[in-house]
């Protein structure tokens, strides 16, 4: 079984948009003289491109082994940064989330979370679930770990949303060091987290 094609395409495009928006932030923040969290934006670019390729076949870019190496390196980098900034609780929480994000992606690449191998979609069809002749998609290894990650990702999305402060009129004012649309980074993070959870769930068949 697999998800409707239009849904996977839409999710893939969403990830490409997140990656593109993060690239735009990196470029424009310099031009506009606004502060931005480079680590988050660079991570979102990488995750956006990688996750798009995980969900939709047309968004395939680098080989899985290369992406695995990239996210292992990312996890190590953020783990070292956590060690170095241990006393700063805010930075620590953010870096911990980045490390966890890299770890989830490493799992996804190693557990074979990938675009469907079925030609077309089984959506709207009888698939004889649980019986001989069932239309099977390639499933993942270690699904229990995947399910634990899905639960963790959902609750992380909720916690991130809870920490987003509502817009206030005074937020519109400010000097040159004002952060560039910080809430949009949180929104990107939530979108990424939900797409990663979706990608894992679509392969538990």
């Amino acid at each position, binding site marked *: *079984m*697999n*998800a*409707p094609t239009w*849904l996977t395409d839409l999710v893939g495009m969403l990830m490409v948009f997140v990656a593109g928006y993060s690239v735009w932030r990196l470029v424009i923040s310099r031009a506009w003289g606004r502060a931005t969290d480079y680590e988050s934006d660079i991570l979102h670019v990488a995750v956006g491109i990688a996750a798009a390729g995980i969900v939709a076949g047309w968004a395939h870019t680098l080989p899985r082994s290369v992406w695995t190496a990239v996210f292992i390196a990312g996890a190590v980098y953020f783990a070292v940064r956590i060690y170095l900034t241990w006393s700063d609780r805010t930075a620590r929480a953010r870096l911990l989330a980045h490390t966890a994000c890299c770890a989830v992606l490493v799992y996804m690449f190693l557990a074979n979370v990938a675009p469907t191998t079925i030609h077309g*979609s*089984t*959506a*709207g*069809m*009888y*698939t*004889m*679930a*649980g019986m001989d002749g069932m239309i099977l*998609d390639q499933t993942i290894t270690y*699904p*229990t770990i995947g*399910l634990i990650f*899905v*639960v963790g990702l*959902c*609750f992380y*999305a*909720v*916690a991130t*949303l*809870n920490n*987003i402060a*509502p817009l206030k009129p005074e937020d519109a004012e400010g000097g040159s060091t004002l952060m560039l649309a910080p809430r949009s980074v949180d929104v990107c993070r939530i979108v990424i987290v*939900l797409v990663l*959870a*979706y990608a894992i*769930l*679509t392969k*538990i*068949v």
Partner: protein
Amino acid sequence: MTRSAALTDRSGQIPVSPDRPAAPPSPARRRLQLVLAGLWLLDGMLKLQPYMFTKNFAPMTLGEAGDGAPFWLVDPLDWAKRIVSDHPVGTMVLFALVEIAIGMAIAYRPTARLGLLACLCWVPFLWFFAEGLGGMTTSAAGPLGGAPGASILYGLLAVLLWPTRRSGPGVTSEAVRFVGTRAARIVWVALWGLLAVLSLLPANREPNAVSDVISANTDGAPKGYAWLLNHAASWAEGRGAEISITLAVLLALVAVSVLLPSRRAVRGGIVLAIVLATLLWVFAEGFGMPFMGMATDPDTGPLLAVIAIAFWPSVPAEVSVQEGAAA
């Protein structure tokens, strides 16, 4: 006696005194709301699994809700099943989006009330058409089978955790803060008492009733978990009556625990409730059976545990202030 004090005595309602400034939002209450939001989000995400979009979903999952149900329930369930079966993609995407939206609305502080209100609107629909009233109308309804249904527990939590700044000595737990002491106690006794009564139904006391429920969860389960379930099922074989009666007694103890005057006894009852909810979730509900990509929700276990935590007696404000001063 003032009017508000009289109201407290009669109904257990927590009065809102105009003289006293509103208390800051309770962090414990917000954490429980976030758990509810997380569970809704998880529910919505589970509904985006490939199996939900196939024509098998409606007859195999929604069809089960009508097994043994009375005629007045079977007809609307068949109607709902037909609609989902004819339009699996449209209906399931809609279901998923509604539930994801509810979870996100509760999680975002400015829309938390709206999210809880949406939850209350969505729950009756889900409970009736998707869960067939949680199987409560069948002769085999019981806590092992997921009664009274996950949806109704979501609704119950939405009411108990409604945002409020009521405070004072009458607030003995988060469950009490909005609905008041008496209503909260009625909810607790009715919920756990109902589960105790359902445990004693003849169908649940049959020799293999418990072992059959446990065995049904082994399909697709990871090896270690399947081994645990198989051992539990073989141990429970032929002991359906003993296990059901023991479970009923324990559930009845939980039900009456909140009426006891001792705070320690109340806490004991709540711990027992959490343990029972965990055991039900692990052995009877198979964590909601997510291992084959067919789970629509995590089932009642986590929700029963969250309800129990909402009743956990809080330390009265006066006591915590005194303890702080002494330290």
